[in-house]
């Protein structure tokens, strides 16, 4: 008869191999646990131990149960069975590194106080043995009073013994005897307990007393303001009686641990030189370390940019092809348009981000698993601490230059909550690849003709610099205002290097991709459909005729002329190609013929494009854009730019397509939109004169705004709060507006 399932919590230091053990036990039967208010991931999984099902909870790696953030507090409350609707663990598995028992047992001694049976899983015994460390497991069990299981989780060695030990521990249900803290500490903790409310475990009273300024203190003093004075007095009394806080706790625990290791562990007298020593000599060396770092970052950045691009284009081509298929089989109408321009474009827009996310996460998982990530943070900490961030913020921010979505997801490696939030909030300021279409369009239109050859490059460079300069400044401001405090300590372990596990890398990559599609995907799709709706309706003109009914016959009628002109243009382009390739001047008559073919093509498209432009002008979004024109005026914008900007709320690059429609130009001919904008602006009293300042103002706006639903959706997902995405969108839009306004007004002054 199968017995009732057991809840088992896995707890251990970072790098104890806890995740490897979790994966080895649960295989594919795992998912991300959903705990309210927790921003780090806690995974749950199941495995079978004989007839019994084990529900495993993989808690985030931690050095101690002295909670310093709300996330760590939830982990402690979960272990104590104080999280509503979550069963208390039946058994706690304390995962420790065999090579470094002296330190890893510190957490074990705290776990022994929780009143739950503890199994000591000594992992990576092979590495320890290779390093000359000899462990007497029987003595370890005797001295700690815990069941001990030697493990090599990466090779699956010892898993059955671990399961058996878990079942045994649950069957007896006897909590271990923790090493005693000084009597004075116990007395003060006991004295505090009555004021903390019915049923508060003694463990929390101890933590409250021992963790000066910790989460337990914040939790209890929030509802009981008098408690803080009481605590201070108790701590002074302890210090006077020779038990200073927090040193007393460390002294008691390490005293116990030393007694245990003295009997159970023999380490070599002379510490052998390790792989890690030799590797570190190069990897954090002043010159070689810096060069390796720069090279790695370059490869990482290039692979997000270059490797992902063909795949991203593949999604574009794929969704266009699918739209074409739908257009062929369906008759024109709202449903067809919703399918092609709303849903297919929306799903394509979501999937497009996948290649970048997968590549970045494979790289991050690799770097983290092999131990290099902390070295990168070590190298960059000085630079990042200048703007109130930490070394671990570097890779997320660098990744954001390709795309903020994977960049924000990469902030999970930052443990400090405030550092992590600050990094998330400034990541969208880095100039991502979606801004490029906007930049290249306007640069081509305003900075290429009759200008010095270096100007386009300089303008583009300047646009990238805006992000690099503004992001640290904003980070610093945030760290000094909304996210003040918490910087004081940056103590980071540099773990031993190890060979990364392919399974872990693939798993991290798939988890990240899936999390994005599932959690951010729906929000992106929803906003794409919303924007489609306000751009599509009303779909009848003043006479009540449907725009589509006007467009379709016209299209059929003009098709032969369009085909002929396109064919002629392509033929001419082919003839011209050799001249361009060998950098010889193109013969005048050929160039003129090409211009004529292009003009014929535009003429064949114009009637349809004009109707489209009229349609969008009268759509709800077009009406809103025209109504808001006074707000765009100080930036030098007309309602068309304004409407295109509003329409690009789901994704920045949408502005190009929308402007094509509003300016009644053909998307296939990139240069055409540029010249159409120039012609349109030339007729205008201010924009005609100040074309360059207007173009710059648009670019500056897009450099600083957060017109990207994917980013907002990911911020929502990673912070588990609506407040932060709303805050990010608001501050970035305000910043973008003011900066665009200044750009235009200053440009006007200079040009005037």
């Amino acid at each position, binding site marked *: 008869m199968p017995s009732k399932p057991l809840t088992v919590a896995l707890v251990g230091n970072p790098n104890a191999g806890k995740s490897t053990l979790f994966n080895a036990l649960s295989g594919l039967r795992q998912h991300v646990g959903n705990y309210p208010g927790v921003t780090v991931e806690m995974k749950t999984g199941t495995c079978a131990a004989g007839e019994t099902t084990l529900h495993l909870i993989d808690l985030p790696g931690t050095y101690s149960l002295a909670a310093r953030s709300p996330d760590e507090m939830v982990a402690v409350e979960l272990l104590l069975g104080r999280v509503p609707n979550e069963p208390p663990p039946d058994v706690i598995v304390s995962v420790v590194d065999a*090579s470094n028992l002296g*330190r890893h047992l510190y957490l074990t001694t705290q776990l022994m106080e929780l009143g739950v049976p503890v199994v000591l899983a000594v992992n990576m015994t092979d590495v320890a043995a290779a390093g000359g460390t000899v462990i007497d497991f029987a003595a370890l069990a005797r001295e700690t009073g815990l069941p001990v299981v030697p493990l090599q989780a990466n090779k699956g060695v010892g898993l059955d013994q671990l399961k058996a030990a878990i079942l045994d521990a649950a069957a007896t249900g006897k909590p271990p005897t923790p090493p005693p803290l000084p009597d004075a500490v116990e007395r003060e903790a006991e004295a505090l307990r009555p004021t903390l409310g019915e049923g508060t475990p003694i463990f929390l009273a101890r933590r409250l007393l021992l963790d000066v300024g910790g989460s337990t203190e914040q939790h209890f003093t929030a509802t009981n303001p008098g408690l803080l004075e009481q605590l201070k007095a108790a701590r002074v009394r302890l210090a006077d009686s020779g038990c200073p806080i927090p*040193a007393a*706790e460390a002294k008691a625990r390490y005293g116990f641990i030393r007694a245990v290791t003295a009997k159970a562990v023999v380490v070599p007298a002379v510490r052998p030189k390790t792989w890690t020593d030799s590797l570190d000599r190069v990897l954090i060396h002043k010159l070689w370390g810096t060069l390796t770092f720069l090279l790695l970052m370059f490869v990482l950045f290039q692979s997000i940019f270059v490797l992902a691009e063909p795949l991203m284009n593949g999604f574009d081509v794929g969704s266009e092809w699918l739209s074409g298929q739908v257009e062929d089989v369906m008759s024109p109408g709202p449903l067809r348009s919703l399918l092609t321009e709303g849903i297919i474009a929306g799903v394509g827009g979501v999937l497009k981000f996948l290649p970048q996310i997968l590549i970045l996460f494979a790289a991050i998982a690799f770097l983290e698993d092999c131990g290099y990530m902390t070295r990168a943070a*070590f190298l960059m*900490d000085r630079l990042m601490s200048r703007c109130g961030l930490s070394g671990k913020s570097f890779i997320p921010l660098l990744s954001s230059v390709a795309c903020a979505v994977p960049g924000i997801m990469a902030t999970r490696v930052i443990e400090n909550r405030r550092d992590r939030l600050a990094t998330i909030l400034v990541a969208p300021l880095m100039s991502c690849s979606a801004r490029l279409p906007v930049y290249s369009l306007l640069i081509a239109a305003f900075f290429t003709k009759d200008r010095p050859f270096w100007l386009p490059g300089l303008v583009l460079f300047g646009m990238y610099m805006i992000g690099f300069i503004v992001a640290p400044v904003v980070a610093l401001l945030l760290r000094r205002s909304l996210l003040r405090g918490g910087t004081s*300590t940056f*103590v*980071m372990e540099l773990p031993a290097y190890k060979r990364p596990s392919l399974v872990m890398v693939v798993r991290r990559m798939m988890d990240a991709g899936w999390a994005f599609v599932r959690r951010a995907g729906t929000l992106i799709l929803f906003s794409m459909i919303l924007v489609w709706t306000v751009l599509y309706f009303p779909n009848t003109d003043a006479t009540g005729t449907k725009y589509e009914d006007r467009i379709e016959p016209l299209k059929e009628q003009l098709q032969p002329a369009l085909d002929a002109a396109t064919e002629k243009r392509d033929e001419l382009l082919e003839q011209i190609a050799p001249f361009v390739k060998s950098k010889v001047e193109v013969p005048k008559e050929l160039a003129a013929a090409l211009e004529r073919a292009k003009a014929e093509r535009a003429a064949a498209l114009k009637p349809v494009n004009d109707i489209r432009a009229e349609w969008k002008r009268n759509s709800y979004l077009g009406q809103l854009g025209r109504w808001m024109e006074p707000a765009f005026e100080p930036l030098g914008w007309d309602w068309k730019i304004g409407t295109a900007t509003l329409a690009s709320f789901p994704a920045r690059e949408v502005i190009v397509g929308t402007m094509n429609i509003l300016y009644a130009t053909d998307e296939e001919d990139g240069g055409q939109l540029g010249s159409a904008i120039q012609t349109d602006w030339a007729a205008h009293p201010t924009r005609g004169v100040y074309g360059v300042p207007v173009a710059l103002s648009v670019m500056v706006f897009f450099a600083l705004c957060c017109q990207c639903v994917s980013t907002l959706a990911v911020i929502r997902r990673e912070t588990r709060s609506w407040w932060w995405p709303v805050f990010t969108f608001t501050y970035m839009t305000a910043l973008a507006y003011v900066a665009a306004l200044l750009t235009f007004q200053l440009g006007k002054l200079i040009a005037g």
Partner: protein
Amino acid sequence: MSLSDLLPGQRATVLAVAGNAALIQRLAEMGLLEGDEIEFVTTAPLGDPIEIRIGDTRLSLRKADAALISVAAVGE
């Protein structure tokens, strides 16, 4: 002398850890205690933070924090 005064490769014994309670506690959890022997491994290329080794544990800490740890150098 303080931890931040040591030279790369130099060993020392930790005498006392000053600073706020959270730092002292954090260092203790990560294995740095009074009476421990440590080795100053190196300084990051940009001049901060530093790396120290206690047994098989390597820790990185900022110079500002290291200055709060007083040590006695172990004879060469």
